[in-house]
């Protein structure tokens, strides 16, 4: 009964392999092919937790500054530093220390279950504040960043229109992306590698070109290099650190063309972002502002007139493709943290199909040899073992389909190994029956004893194989795991088919035919 069900489950995948249409009305539990067989890309992305910490410190600095500025009366501070992964500053008027603490405390929140806060605030030497991130706070920040990064990655991949991508968080700071049958893996990697952190900052026109060249920025400014593909690649400009706006408040981004028919990206701000942008542009007419993407200047146009409509154009020496890609990235939002590709496995669809063909050919030839050997050596008992083997293979396929596991290239090798090893149980049993007969036992007793005595070794051997298989599963990722899956499922099914099923058939035959001797 179980056998029948399991085999039925394997049928759809068999049918599709032979190009036969499986009726749509029936359930269709197909076996998934791994990327190494179906073709596709596996990409492992990693975020640097230090970057999250750095950004978090920057945000804290801005928040602290504005909280103290907005406090009544205003609290003046000096000697602000965010070195050593902590924020420190001095309150000018020592009598305002308590008020300052009051103003800063709401900026911290609880983190984790232990009642820890995400930042600790200490006051040393009477009026120096030191604000340090706690471990819990950092972990929480990384988790949040990774959650939203995963969401952004999903949106970007969906925008590419690929089918059935798999996107999974892995460990603390990694994301696995698996996309079957991809035409251009490079485009995908470019898209995921782009943080798309868009900033508009005012150019510091007071900076001396000679200083800028040496990387020296005036106080309150920073040096930002031009992007490699911009018209000014290799040079840098100075921009004001604070007072710019971020491009994370966009409602839309599209590739379009400017009046000179150059590809640009048109962006639309949300209401709040639009107001900020309007203020920035109206306060700075006739000054240049820099459009910065992921820490590189795309262009630094002049603000000719206030931009009030809440939409703008980003120019930057784009091709249609690169403008389109940037538009997708901006639409799906900036990644809260840079992602680096630390592992990539891509297999073209042709190679995958070729592997399947060769693997199945080898499996067929190998099976024929095994079956030939079994029948030549054990006659009728070899035929039983063969039928059991066929059922075994079907059951493995069925269980794989039912458990929704993936068949990989090493998994094919696992099949071959299982076919070679599954008959081991039959060999053990048949050799034992031979021995028992040689010792003069009658047919029924010999068969009985053969199965009984051999089972011990069969179970022991399969349990040790199982131990090795489980470790293989735990150790392996992707393709290797597919190997472990086939081996482990094969252990269970082969004990069932090679021992239980053949015992039933042999017993049935012995009862009916009552042979006086065994041709074994």
């Amino acid at each position, binding site marked *: 009964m179980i056998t029948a069900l399991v085999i039925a489950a394997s049928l759809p995948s068999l049918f599709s392999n032979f190009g036969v249409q499986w009726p749509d009305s029936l359930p269709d539990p197909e076996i998934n092919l791994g990327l190494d067989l179906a073709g596709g890309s596996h990409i492992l992305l990693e975020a640097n937790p230090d970057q999250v910490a750095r950004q978090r410190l920057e945000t804290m600095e801005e928040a602290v500054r504005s909280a103290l500025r907005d406090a009544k009366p205003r609290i003046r501070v000096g000697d602000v530093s965010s070195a050593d992964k902590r924020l420190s500053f001095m309150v000018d008027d020592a009598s305002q220390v308590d008020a300052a603490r009051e103003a800063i405390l709401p900026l911290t929140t609880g983190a984790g279950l232990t009642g820890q806060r995400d930042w600790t605030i200490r006051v040393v030497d009477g009026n120096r504040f030191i604000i340090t991130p706690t471990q819990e706070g950092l972990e929480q920040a990384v988790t949040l960043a990774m959650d939203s990064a995963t969401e952004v990655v999903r949106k970007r991949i969906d925008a590419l229109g690929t089918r059935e991508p798999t996107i999974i968080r892995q460990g603390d700071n990694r994301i696995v992306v698996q996309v079957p049958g991809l035409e251009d893996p490079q485009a995908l*990697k470019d898209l995921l590698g782009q943080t798309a952190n868009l900033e508009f900052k005012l150019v510091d026109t007071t900076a001396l070109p000679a200083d800028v060249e040496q990387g020296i920025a005036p106080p309150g400014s920073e040096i930002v290099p031009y992007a490699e593909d911009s018209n000014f690649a290799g040079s840098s400009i100075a921009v004001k650190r604070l007072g710019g706006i971020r491009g994370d408040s966009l409602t839309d981004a599209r590739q379009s063309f400017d009046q000179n028919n150059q590809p640009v990206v048109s962006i639309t701000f949300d209401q709040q972002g639009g107001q900020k942008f309007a203020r920035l542009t109206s306060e700075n007419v006739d000054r240049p502002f820099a459009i910065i993407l992921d820490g590189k200047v795309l262009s630094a146009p002049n603000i000719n007139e206030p931009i009030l409509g809440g939409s703008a154009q980003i120019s930057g020496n784009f091709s249609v493709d690169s403008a389109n890609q940037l538009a997708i990235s901006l639409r799906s939002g900036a990644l809260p943290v840079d992602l680096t590709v630390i592992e990539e496995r891509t297999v073209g669809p*042709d190679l995958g199909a070729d592997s399947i063909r060769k693997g199945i050919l*080898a499996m067929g030839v190998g099976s024929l040899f*095994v079956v030939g*050997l079994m029948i030549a050596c054990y*006659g009728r008992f070899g035929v039983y073992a063969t039928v059991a083997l066929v059922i075994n293979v079907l059951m493995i396929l069925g269980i794989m389909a039912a458990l929704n596991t993936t068949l990989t290239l090493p998994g094919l090798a696992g099949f*071959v190994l299982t076919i070679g090893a599954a008959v081991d149980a039959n060999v053990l049993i048949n050799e034992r029956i031979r021995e028992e007969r040689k010792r003069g036992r009658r047919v029924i007793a010999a068969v009985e004893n053969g199965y009984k005595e051999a089972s011990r070794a069969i179970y022991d051997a399969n349990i040790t194989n199982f131990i090795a298989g489980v470790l293989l599963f735990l150790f392996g990722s992707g393709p290797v795991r597919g190997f472990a899956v086939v081996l482990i499922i094969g252990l269970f099914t082969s004990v069932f088919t090679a021992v239980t099923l053949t015992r039933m058939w042999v017993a049935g035959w012995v009862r009916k035919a009552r042979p006086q001797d065994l041709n074994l």
Partner: protein
Amino acid sequence: MRLLKLVPEDTNIHFLKWRLPFYIVSCLLIAASWGLVMTKGLNYGVDFAGGQEIRATFTESPEAPISDLRDQVGELGYGDPIIQRFGNPNEVSIRVKLPESAEGNAGAAEAISQRIITTIEAAHPDIRIDGVDTVSGKVSGEFREKAIYALLAAMLAIALYIWVRFEWQFGIGGLFALFHDVSLTLGMFALFQMEFSLQIIAAILAIIGYSLNDTIVVYDRIRENLKKYRKMPMPELLDLSVNETLARTVMTSLTLLVALIPLLIFGPASLFGLTAAITVGIFVGTYSSVYMAAPILIWLKVSSNSFVPEESSAEKQERKARGQV
């Protein structure tokens, strides 16, 4: 119909007579394997060394221009690329190890891979990139660590299981046989400098499982015979057990080999290493269960008493009184 008998009936080969010389040879082989691993080293693939492996097909040429490729990729300055035929004559694998300076830089491997692909695509318009494996130094380091843990854990867990199911001497014997099989497989990879990848670790774990099959079948028979022939001297009893299970040992190894060899010949090129490792493992595993796992029991002083408690004299008299012998 006459059935084929691979092993004649009632063999009585004195395997154990030669146990000492075989043991010495085996120990020398183990030492030689480790010597090779230490001196020549394993030819780590991208999984363990980091870097990239690019597989490509030249769709319009009968043969891949390997030396051209070597020059073009070599000029990029990432050290000597390993360029080999992979499958058909017009298919190649290009392997570039990660420069040591790039070990800590997560994105370096990816950037190098991109440059190589751009370069060869520009030089050979008919090239088709079939597959790319890029592994950064960080990931390859993790793979190395995990591989060692997995191998050690598998060997220990299995030795422990045999100990629980049999006796501690059997556990040690089984473990020693496994150590022998794993060492020789590693030695072969060092000798022929075949690419050592994640798949090979998978193969070794599978070998650990399958080579133990043989050992367990022999051990199971030894245990049975120890209970049955309580007076038989150990070497004789071991010989008997090995001979009794010989037909099965040969047959099982043979069914595995006839299943694997077609895979070696017709199978996809990327499975060659895995299949070769398992095939060799089956050979050494069969040998080790006869010549390593069994004789060690003599030296570890296994006897019938290990399984059946010795009779006290009172029990002996009682048995005699009941007229049993």
